[in-house]
Every structure is written in structure tokens, then in C-alpha cells.
């Protein structure tokens, strides 16, 4: 049982565990090394089932032969439109093992977006999850002349469908098995022919502005990145991972799937995006990589549970978390933790903190890793106070995941850690933009040489668009996205994300967008957390009927005002938010205002709600 004051076992591992310089080579090698160990776990009809490496290798082989029997050539593109699942991972590996290129599509994307992504990537085979996703594909297939086959993971409800283009996943496995028996070894030959410099995957950036861009990653880049990850935070076959973020996003793809492929950590799949809170408790991951939104949700669920508990429980919690805080402060200041404090902490864990960890499902976690979006330092400190090390990593689609990462030896909340040993990170001397160079940096954007040239300069430095600073220890800190910086009418440069993160730390606020470019003062568009605000309304007898009436009720406005006031207190006068407006529609990932990772799209929100913004600037 590790504690914050002894995090030695979180050292990285620099040896190469599995040989192979392409993903297929690495997969076949790993499957041979770990034949009977369990790799994937997923629920079937509510009961957990396990698949060993050998099982996975067999399925990938059959699927790969199946794809070859359908005429998929090396370098062809195949797309996957599904929620995170075992089938996703195996299909992805089968595509790569055929020497083809794999391209993930968000299951929340609309049919028109599916059409764009398939067309842009030139996909010949499309894997879809079920009838719902199939309908999107069928609606746009007339516009996709290159698309030849659609493979459906779950054929429930589709038995009556007879369409020459559509086949079930199981049917493809069967077909591949028969085909492979006639010409054994063809898939392995295809895998062996695969070159490290070949294009492996396309990751479309969520595109807060304009059309999504397909970032191209080579096998070499992927292999280099996962080996690099293990030098930062080691995991191995004893670790349990929870696979739940969309696999088309870089974090779960590289940090989840490929890192587990390399290290042998067990991948446990959630049932669906709605069951994440229950599934975390069942799985109790030992290494837990998630995005800030998830960490915020966990925190607010604990806060809610706390409000409903007895005064004695609340007092115990306050004492326990206080002890945790004192330890976290000492560890952060690199001071020794006294034995008295250690004893108190053991008691605090036994009395309350272990239960809080269990409530979330992080009671077995060796480390928590947060990435993909900025996280509030207060939130990191809260997890540290529970005694669980939370390390922030920073990277982007174009850098194949993490480029800088917090080290367990020296944690500085609010910073994104020093540059990872496997790539170079520096600041642009003029603009302070963060630049990254290394083999993990992407090959460019598909079909967009101009955009590629904008991002990658002649010396191979990737211009990330994030503006930052670096301290004497080499720890980087992001101040903002370059294009998000607000210059008020008074000429003051404001970096909105700092204030926004402070707001998001409140359990009542899910997301916020600061407005103020060329305006006399700052305002904010705020998206409330429905569950928590409803709970607040009920507890305080605030009448409301639907979501819109909730956002218009005076008591809720006062509540959010108090959160804004608290945040304002930490900022200088010109950086304070004078007015705000609460989004009055309940948004879901399907809506255009949100990215698939549930972040508000700044530009779009500003355009769409322009009248409300104008209203905030009318006196």
C-alpha cells in the first residue's frame, strides 16, 4: 500500500518489454509471450468474461483473414464507428495486421459527419457497433462510392436484413477462418511486410473550428510513444485498466489500448458510457487514466454524498481530509512527513478516506493520470489528500499522447510537468508557444498539406498552439490556447482557461466559456451541472419544472453568482467576470455545441448565442 510519501514504485521502466517496431509485430510477439494470460475483460449479459492473449490472437487472425478475403489491400483505410469495446480493439488490430490503416469515428457523430470522415479517409470497410450506427452508414452510403463493406458488431434486430454490403462481425470471423484454412499464414505475411514508417492510424481532431482534420500516425510513432509512456509510468500484466474513453480519441487509443498491448495490463471494458460510475467500482482499476470531466464528476458525487450524510460523518470526513491535506502539502513542499501525521493518516484512511476511495472505485489505484484538458489544481490536491497520487500529463493528438508528464518524485499541481525524456519540448522565444519535436510527433494531416505546414516547421518542431511558461526545474505550465487569448477593449490580455477551470471546480458548473474579446469587461456563458443543481433546488425549495426554468430561477442564478464571486476573488479586477448567462438547453454529446469529449466549443457557442452575449453588454 503506497502512500504519498513513498511513491518509489511509480518509477518508469526503460527496458523494452515486447519487441517489434510495428503494432502488428508487437501484437504477435506479445500474444506469443503471454499466450494464456488474460488480456481483455468485458461483460456479456451482465457477467464478466475474460479473453486470453491466445483468444485475441485467434480472433484477430480470423478477422484479418476475413478482411483480406473481402479484398482489403495493404494501405487501404478501414473505419470503426462504435463505442469502446472488445470488438473495437480486435477490429483495430485486425485492420493493422492486414497492413491497412485504421480510422476511428465517434459514435456520437451524426450521419453527415460519418460521411465526411469516411470520404476524407477514403475508407473501404466500415465497422459499426449496432443497428443504430448502421443506419447512419446506410443513410450516406450513396455518397461513399469507395465504401465496399459494412461489418456490424451486434446483429441484434438485423436478422431480417439482407443487404449485400452488410455482414455481421461473427460472420466475418467465420469467413476469415475458412479462408485462412485454405491459405494459412497470409495474414502473418501481410503483417511482416508492414513497415515502421507506414501510416498506421488516423485520428481526427475534434475540430472546435471547421472540419475535423485527420492526424496521421505511423507505426514507428505509435511504438515509440508507448515505449516512451512506460518510461514515465510503468504498468505491467498485474495492472487492471478500465477502457472507457472513446477509442477514436488519442488518450484511450494510445494510453489505453496500445499501452496495454505493450505492457500486458488487463483491459476491462465498461458496458456503455452511462454505466461508468458503477463499472469503476466493479473494476477498481490500478492505473486509471481519465479526462478532467471524469475526475470532476467523481468529486462532485462525493460532495453530494457528503451533504446527505450525518453531522458525525461530515466531521470525520473534514478531519480525515484535513490530515490528508497536511500530508499533501508537506509532500508537495518536499518536506518529510512526521510519524505522528503518518499515524493520523492511517487512522483517517481507516475511518473515512478508504470509504471515499471505495465510493469512487479508486481504492486499488496506484496512480491516477489526468490528461486531454486542463484540470483545476484544487481538484488534483483533493485527490492527493485522499492519498492517491494524481499525475497530470499534457499532449495532443499530434504528439501521439503525452509530451510532458508530472513525475511522482516531484508533483507540482498547476503545472503539466517536465518534458518527457523521449521528446524535446521548448517555448517559442517570441510567442511563448509550446513546441514539441520527436519521433512521436505525427506525420501530418491527411489531405491537408497547408495545415501540416502550419503545424510542423522546417526543423520538425510541432507548433502546438498552447502558450506556456517553464520554471527553473523545467516544469511547464500552460497559460492558454493561443487562439483563445482574449484581449479586452482596455488592452488587457486574458487567458480564459484559468478562470474557466476555477468555475468548473464547483460541483454546480460543468463547463464555462469566457467572453470579452474587444469588450469592456469579461462575461461568461455557463453550463450548469444538471444533477447537482436540481438537487440544490430541491433541498432549498426552489420551484422549477424543466431544465430551462431551472436555469432561470433566481435562486440558481444567485448560487452561480456566488460561485463566480468566489472565483472572482482570486483574480485581479480586470480579470473578473462581471456578468454571466446560463445555457438554457440541456446539451448532450450529439449536439453541435459540444465536442465528443463534452467540452463546449468556444467559437460555436459565441456565434450561436450571440444575442445572449450582446444582452450581457447592454447596460
Amino acid at each position, binding site marked *: 500500500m503506497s502512500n504519498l510519501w513513498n511513491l518509489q514504485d511509480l518509477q518508469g521502466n526503460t527496458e523494452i518489454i515486447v519487441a517489434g517496431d510495428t503494432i502488428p509485430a508487437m501484437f504477435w510477439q506479445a500474444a506469443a509471450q503471454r499466450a494464456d494470460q488474460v488480456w481483455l475483460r468485458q461483460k456479456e449479459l451482465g457477467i464478466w468474461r475474460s479473453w486470453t492473449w491466445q483468444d485475441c490472437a485467434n480472433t484477430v487472425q480470423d478477422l484479418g483473414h476475413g478482411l483480406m478475403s473481402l479484398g482489403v489491400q495493404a494501405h487501404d483505410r478501414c473505419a470503426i464507428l462504435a463505442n469502446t469495446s472488445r470488438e473495437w480493439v480486435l477490429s483495430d488490430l485486425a485492420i493493422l495486421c492486414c497492413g491497412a490503416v485504421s480510422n476511428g469515428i465517434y459514435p456520437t457523430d451524426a450521419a453527415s459527419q460519418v460521411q465526411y470522415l469516411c470520404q476524407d479517409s477514403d475508407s473501404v470497410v466500415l465497422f459499426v457497433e*449496432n*443497428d*443504430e450506427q*448502421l*443506419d447512419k452508414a*446506410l*443513410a450516406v452510403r450513396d455518397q461513399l462510392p469507395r465504401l465496399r463493406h459494412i461489418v456490424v458488431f451486434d446483429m*441484434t*434486430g438485423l436478422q*431480417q*436484413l439482407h443487404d449485400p454490403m452488410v455482414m455481421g462481425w461473427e460472420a466475418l470471423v467465420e469467413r476469415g477462418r475458412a479462408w485462412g484454412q485454405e491459405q494459412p499464414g497470409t495474414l502473418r505475411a501481410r503483417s511482416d511486410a508492414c513497415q515502421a514508417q507506414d501510416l498506421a492510424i488516423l485520428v481526427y481532431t475534434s475540430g472546435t473550428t471547421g472540419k475535423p482534420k485527420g492526424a496521421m500516425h505511423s507505426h514507428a510513432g505509435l511504438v515509440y510513444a508507448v515505449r516512451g509512456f512506460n518510461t514515465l509510468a510503468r504498468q505491467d500484466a498485474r495492472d487492471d485498466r478500465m477502457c472507457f474513453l472513446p477509442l477514436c480519441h488519442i488518450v484511450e487509443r494510445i494510453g489505453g489500448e496500445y499501452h496495454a498491448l505493450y505492457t500486458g495490463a488487463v483491459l476491462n471494458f465498461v458496458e456503455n458510457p452511462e454505466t461508468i460510475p458503477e463499472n469503476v467500482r466493479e473494476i477498481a482499476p490500478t492505473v486509471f487514466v481519465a479526462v478532467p470531466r471524469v475526475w470532476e464528476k467523481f468529486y462532485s458525487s462525493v460532495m453530494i454524498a457528503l451533504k446527505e450524510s450525518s453531522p458525525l460523518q461530515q466531521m470525520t470526513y473534514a478531519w480525515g481530509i484535513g490530515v490528508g491535506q497536511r500530508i499533501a502539502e508537506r509532500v508537495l513542499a518536499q518536506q518529510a512527513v512526521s510519524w505522528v501525521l503518518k499515524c493520523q493518516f492511517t487512522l483517517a484512511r481507516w475511518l473515512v478516506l478508504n470509504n471515499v476511495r471505495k465510493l469512487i472505485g479508486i481504492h486499488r489505484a496506484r496512480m491516477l493520470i489526468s490528461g486531454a484538458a486542463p484540470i483545476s489544481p484544487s481538484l488534483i490536491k483533493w485527490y492527493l489528500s485522499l492519498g492517491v497520487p494524481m499525475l497530470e500529463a499534457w499532449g495532443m493528438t499530434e504528439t501521439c499522447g503525452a509530451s510532458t508528464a508530472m513525475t511522482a518524485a516531484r508533483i507540482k499541481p498547476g503545472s503539466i510537468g517536465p518534458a518527457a525524456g523521449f521528446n524535446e519540448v521548448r517555448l517559442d522565444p517570441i510567442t511563448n508557444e509550446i513546441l514539441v519535436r520527436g519521433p512521436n510527433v505525427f506525420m501530418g494531416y491527411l489531405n491537408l498539406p497547408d495545415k501540416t505546414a502550419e503545424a510542423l516547421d522546417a526543423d520538425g518542431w510541432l507548433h502546438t498552439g498552447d502558450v506556456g511558461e517553464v520554471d527553473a526545474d523545467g516544469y511547464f505550465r500552460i497559460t492558454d490556447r493561443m487562439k483563445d487569448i482574449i484581449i479586452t477593449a482596455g488592452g488587457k490580455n486574458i487567458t480564459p482557461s484559468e478562470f474557466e477551470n476555477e468555475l468548473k471546480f464547483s460541483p454546480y458548473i460543468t463547463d464555462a466559456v469566457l467572453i470579452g474579446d474587444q469588450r469592456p469587461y469579461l462575461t461568461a456563458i455557463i453550463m450548469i451541472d444538471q444533477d447537482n443543481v*436540481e438537487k440544490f*433546488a*430541491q433541498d432549498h*425549495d*426552489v*420551484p*422549477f*419544472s*424543466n*431544465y430551462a426554468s431551472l436555469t432561470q430561477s433566481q435562486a440558481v442564478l444567485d448560487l452561480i453568482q456566488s460561485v463566480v464571486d468566489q472565483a472572482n476573488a482570486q483574480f485581479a479586477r480586470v480579470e473578473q467576470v462581471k456578468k454571466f448567462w446560463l445555457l438554457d*438547453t*440541456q446539451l*448532450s454529446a*450529439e449536439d453541435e455545441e459540444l465536442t465528443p469529449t463534452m467540452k463546449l466549443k468556444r467559437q460555436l457557442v459565441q456565434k450561436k448565442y450571440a444575442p445572449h452575449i450582446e444582452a450581457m453588454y447592454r447596460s
Partner: protein
Amino acid sequence: MSGDQTPILQLLNVESSYGPIKAIRGVSLQVNAGEIVTVLGSNGAGKSTILKTISGIIEPRKGSVLHQGQDITGQDPAAIVQRGVSHVPEGREVFPLLSVHDNLLMGAYTRQDRDGVARDMAQVYAYFPILQERSGQHAGLLSGGQQQMLALSRALMAEPDMILLDEPSLGLSPKLTLEIFEIVVRINRERGTTILLVEQNAHMALNAADRGYVLENGRIVMEDSCERLREKDDIREFYLGMKDDSVRTERRWKKKKTWR
């Protein structure tokens, strides 16, 4: 139905539960005089609980019920009937061993004006002639539809200014349902009785009512005039069963409800 009048009935943040199970979680709604308002929702959404809370059968844990601006939360059901709020419970609940006539008199139990009772009795028989034909028979011998007519008539006998109507279409043929709804609308138009109608038959309810609330898991997710509710995508798909067919002829998967 102007907004500045005091609504005849108002619920403010009402929470009711059966033991530890919360059935409605913070419901606020209002009914103006002379309106027909409907509450739609699936099984277990908490529709009947709302009516039971209004009529005083269940005491809410939180929140208040206002009748003509006065707080009647948790008052004795009998007192609430005397204020002019009659409840037609789900499943009719007529007195099976009393005659039809006596059932109607039970409805008028709290009234003193014999003339008024006789006049209402005549009017009820005019609405439902079949009840007059069978007035001497035990109510238990009536058909389901006739029992529903009787239950509605019994409520009218209390001379209410407001009727809480719980699933009048339960177990009735489409034809009888239509008849009952026609009478409900007629009662509202002729007598000016305000009606709060709880229904699973969304199609009928949306045609009969002026305004509607949609209840899901004990919470109101939507409120609007019935005309506008009928046009909402979620209502069309989930309550009226009209879904746009997909590219394939049959669609099995359900859209996500967004309630907007």
C-alpha cells in the same frame, strides 16, 4: 386564463415517497381556472402520486400544495373535497355493493343543498343515460366503461370546481375512451370545471387538454401547450409512437431523449 389570476392549483417543489422510495422528486406545476391540464408519463413516473398528494391521501415530504392561493398541504382529504377538489382514482374504485344511485349520493355526501344535489343528479344522468337505466343495480355489475362513467359522475356530485382525473382510459376500448374524453371536455366547457388529467394515452390526452406536463422518473422534463407538445420530436417518438423510419424499413433502436 390570463396569467395574473391566482391559479386554482399550484404545486411547489412537491416531493412524495412511499417509504424510502421517492415517487416524485420536486414537482412544480400550476393549473389555471377553467383549463384542462394533462400530466403525461410512463408507468411509475409518479403521475398518480401527484394526484394523491393533491387530494391529501399522501402527505408530501417537502413542498406545498396551494388551492386558490391557500396552502392545503397535508390537509384531511375530506376537507379538500369540501374545498371543491374531487379525485377520480385510478381503476374507478366504485362501491360495488351499493346501487348506482347510492354511489352517486356518496359523492354528494358533504353537501347540504338537496335541490342542488337533485339538479346535479339529473345532469349526470343526462351525460350518461346508461347510468339512469341501471340506477337501481349494484355498481359492481356495471361494465368497466360504465364504472368509469359512474366514478366520474360521483366526483361531479360533490359540485367540484376542480376534478383530478386518474387514467380514465384504463382498460377501456378505444371507442369508450373516446366517449369518456368527449364528456370530460364537455364537463369542462359547460360547467367550467377545471380538470387535471393524468393519462398514459398521450394521444387522447393531448387532444383533450389545453396544456401538458411530461413527467419522467418523478421529475417534470417538459411543459407546454398541447399544440406545441404534439409537435415536439421526443413526444412524437416516445409518447405518440410516430417515428421516422430509417433507411431500413424497421428501426429498433431508440433515440436519446433531449426534451426540448
